C-alpha cells in the first residue's frame, strides 16, 4: 500500500513550519544591567527553520544538545511563542487563532509526548484522572461512566490494563509511564503528535516496545508525528523524513532512507560516522573533532565551519542558503560548489541472525 511517492509532490501537508525563529532573553537582571552596565544577551535557539510534514507521516528532527530541536517542538505545540515565522496547521496560521473556541478546537488536534516519564505525570493524580484530563478539559465525553470506559479503552490501546487506572504513577515502570503519557496524548483524538525524545530515558528493550507501539498507533489512527531525538538509529527506524539541526539551523532535511544513504551536509556525515558500530564490521570511524560552540555567540557564516573539514573563506563569511537535493534540501557552500566528495554509505549486509 505504500507507493513510493516523489518527495517534491508533498501535496497533503498537515503541518508546515515557515521561517520559524525563537530568541530567548538570557540577559542578567535589570538591576545588574543598570548598575554594572551589562548588555542584553539574546540566545538564538531556533533560526529560520522551515519544513513540511505530510499527513500520516513522521518527520524527525535530529541533532546534538543545544541545536534547538526541542525548542522547535515546544514552539509547534504553543508552549513558547515564536519570535518570527509561522506555524501552519492545515494551512491556517496557528498564531492567528485568537478566538477561544477555535483555539480549543485546534488544541485537541495536536498533543505532545514528553521525554521524562518520571516528570511528565503528576505524581499525586490517579492514572485514570491523568488520562481523563484532556477529555474533561475539552468536554469530549459526558458522564463519569462514559469517561471511565473511554479511559479503560485508551489504557488497553497502549498495552496496559483498564484496571491500571486506579493506580498512581509511582507504581509503574518507566516504560509503562510512557504508555500512560501516550494514552493521555491520545485521549483527545489528536491527528498530530509532537514527541520530544520519547524514548531517550528508557532502556533499549523498553524503547523497542514504545517505538513499536508508536508505529502501530500511527498505522491504526493515521497519526502524524513530529519526532525529536538525538539517536540516529531510532530516527532512521521511525521516520519518513528527517531534518538535521545544528545550532538552531536546519542544515539538511530529506526523505529518511535517501538521506541516510547519501548524506550531503558534512555535519550529517559526521553524525552518521559517530554511531557506534554494532554490527562489528570493523568499519573505521573518523572521530569527529571539536564540540558544539555556545549558542550565545555562534560562529559567523555557516555555524559549522570551525568543525568542518571542508570549510573555506566563504563558509566563514556567509550563511549558506538551502539547495534542493535528491532527498530534500541541504544548506552548505561546499555542496553547492561541488567541492564535496559524493559518498554512498553502503547498505549494511542483510542481518545474519535469525
Amino acid at each position: 500500500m505504500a507507493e513510493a511517492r516523489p518527495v517534491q509532490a508533498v501535496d497533503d501537508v498537515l503541518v508546515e513550519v515557515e521561517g520559524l525563529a525563537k530568541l530567548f532573553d538570557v540577559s542578567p537582571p535589570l538591576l545588574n544591567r543598570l548598575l554594572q552596565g551589562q548588555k542584553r544577551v539574546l540566545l538564538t535557539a531556533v533560526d529560520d527553520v522551515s519544513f513540511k510534514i505530510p499527513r500520516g507521516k513522521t518527520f524527525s528532527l535530529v541533532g546534538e544538545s543545544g541545536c534547538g530541536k526541542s525548542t522547535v517542538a515546544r514552539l509547534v505545540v504553543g508552549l513558547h511563542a515564536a519570535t518570527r515565522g509561522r506555524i501552519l496547521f492545515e494551512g491556517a496560521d496557528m498564531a492567528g487563532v485568537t478566538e477561544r473556541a477555535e483555539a480549543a478546537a485546534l488544541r485537541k488536534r495536536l498533543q505532545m509526548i514528553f521525554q521524562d516519564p518520571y516528570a511528565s505525570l503528576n505524581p499525586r493524580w490517579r492514572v485514570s484522572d491523568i488520562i481523563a484530563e484532556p477529555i474533561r478539559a475539552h468536554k469530549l465525553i459526558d458522564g463519569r461512566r462514559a469517561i471511565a470506559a473511554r479511559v479503560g479503552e485508551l489504557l488497553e490501546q497502549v498495552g496496559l490494563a483498564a484496571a491500571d487506572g486506579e493506580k498512581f504513577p509511582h507504581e509503574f515502570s518507566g516504560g509503562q509511564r510512557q504508555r500512560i503519557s501516550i494514552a493521555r496524548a491520545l485521549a483527545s483524538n489528536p491527528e498530530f503528535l509532537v514527541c520530544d525524545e520519547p524514548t531517550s530515558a528508557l532502556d533499549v528493550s523498553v524503547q523497542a516496545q514504545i517505538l513499536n507501539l508508536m508505529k502501530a498507533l500511527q498505522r491504526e489512527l493515521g497519526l502524524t508525528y513530529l519526532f525529536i531525538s538525538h539517536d540516529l538509529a531510532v530516527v532512521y527506524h521511525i521516520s519518513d523524513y528527517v531534518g538535521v539541526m545544528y545550532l538552531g539551523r536546519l542544515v539538511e532535511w530529506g526523505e529518511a532512507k535517501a538521506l541516510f544513504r547519501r548524506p550531503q551536509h558534512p555535519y550529517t556525515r559526521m553524525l552518521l560516522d559517530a554511531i557506534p558500530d554494532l554490527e562489528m564490521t570493523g568499519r573505521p570511524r573518523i572521530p569527529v573533532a571539536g564540540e558544539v560552540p555556545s549558542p550565545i555567540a555562534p560562529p559567523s557564516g555557516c555555524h559549522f565551519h570551525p568543525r568542518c573539514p571542508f570549510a573555506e573563506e566563504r563558509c566563514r563569511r556567509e550563511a549558506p542558503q538551502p539547495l534542493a537535493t535528491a532527498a530534500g534540501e541541504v544548506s552548505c557552500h561546499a555542496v553547492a560548489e561541488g567541492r564535496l566528495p559524493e559518498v554512498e554509505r553502503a547498505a549494511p549486509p542483510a542481518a545474519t541472525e535469525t
Partner: protein
Amino acid sequence: MAVGENQQAGVRRGFATHLADGVRRFFHGDLWHSFTRSPVVMVSAVITVVFVASAIFAPLVAPYDPFDLASIDLLDSEIPPIWIEGGDPRFLLGTDDQGRGILSTMIYGARISLGVGFASVLFAMVLGVGLGLLSGYLGGTVDAIIMRIADVQLTFPAILIALLIDGLSRTVLPRDLHGEIWFYVLVLAIGLSFWVQYARTVRGSAMVERSKEYVQAAQVIGIPPLLIMLRHVLPNVMGPVLVIATINLAIAVITEATLSFLGVGVPPTSPSLGTLIRVGNDFLFSGSWWITIFPGAALAILVLAVNLLGDWLRDALNPKLR
C-alpha cells in the same frame, strides 16, 4: 432524578474508598513508620493532642468555668497548689488573685492561645501560599512585585508589625469595639508577619514544578493557568508548607503570648496563657509563684512539643535524609 442520585452515591462511594485507601496508605507509609520508631516524637504528639483536645473540650475538661462569675469567690484567692500547706483540694494547682482555679484558667487560656495560633497560621498560610504560587508560576513582573513586597516585609520584626497593627486598630476603631475584635487584630498581626516564609518556599517549589513536564502537558492540553496552579502545582508544593505551618504554630503561640505579656494582645477578661503569665508576674515576688509558673511551664511544654513534631515532620518528609 434517579440517575442523579445514583451518580451522587457513586461519587460518595468513590470518596469513601479513596479515603480508606488514603488511610491504609498512610499507615503503611514511611511517615507512620518513622513516627512509630521515635519515642520523643510520639510523646510530643501525645502532649500536643492532649493540649488541643483539652482546649477544644475546655468546658467539659476544666473543673470550673473561670468566666462564670457565679463560681468565683474572692475568698479563694491566692490558694497554693494542693501539695503545699494551705492548699485546697478543690484547686489542684492553686488559684490566682481573683480566686479562679489556675488549672481551669490554663485550660481556657490554652484554648485562646491555640485558637489564635491556628487561625493566624492558617491566615499566613493562605496568603503566603497564594502569593507564592502566583509569584513562582507566573514569574516576570508579578513575581518581582510580590517578592519586593516580601523583602520589605522581612525588614520588620514580627513583634513590630503586630504592635503596629494593634496600635492602628486601637486608634482607627472605636474603643469599645476592641473588646470584640481583638481576636481578628491578633490573627491579622501575627499572620501578616509570617506569610513571607510560605510565599518564598512555595515560590521556589512552584518554579521547579512549573518547569516539569506534567505542567507542560497540562498547558498543551489547554488547561487555564489558574486551574494548573490549583490542581497540578499546589498539591505538589504543599509538603514543605505543612512543615513550616507546624513550626509556625509554635512561634505563633509564643508571639501571641509575647503580645499579651506586653499588654497589647488578649484582654485580661478572657486570658490566654500569655496574659496569665503577665498577670501572675505581678505576684511572683509576693510568694504566689504558681500563678505565673504553671502557665509558663504549660506554654513551654506545648511549644517544645509542637516544635519537635515540626522538626520530625521536616526530616521525615525530606527524601535526602531518609
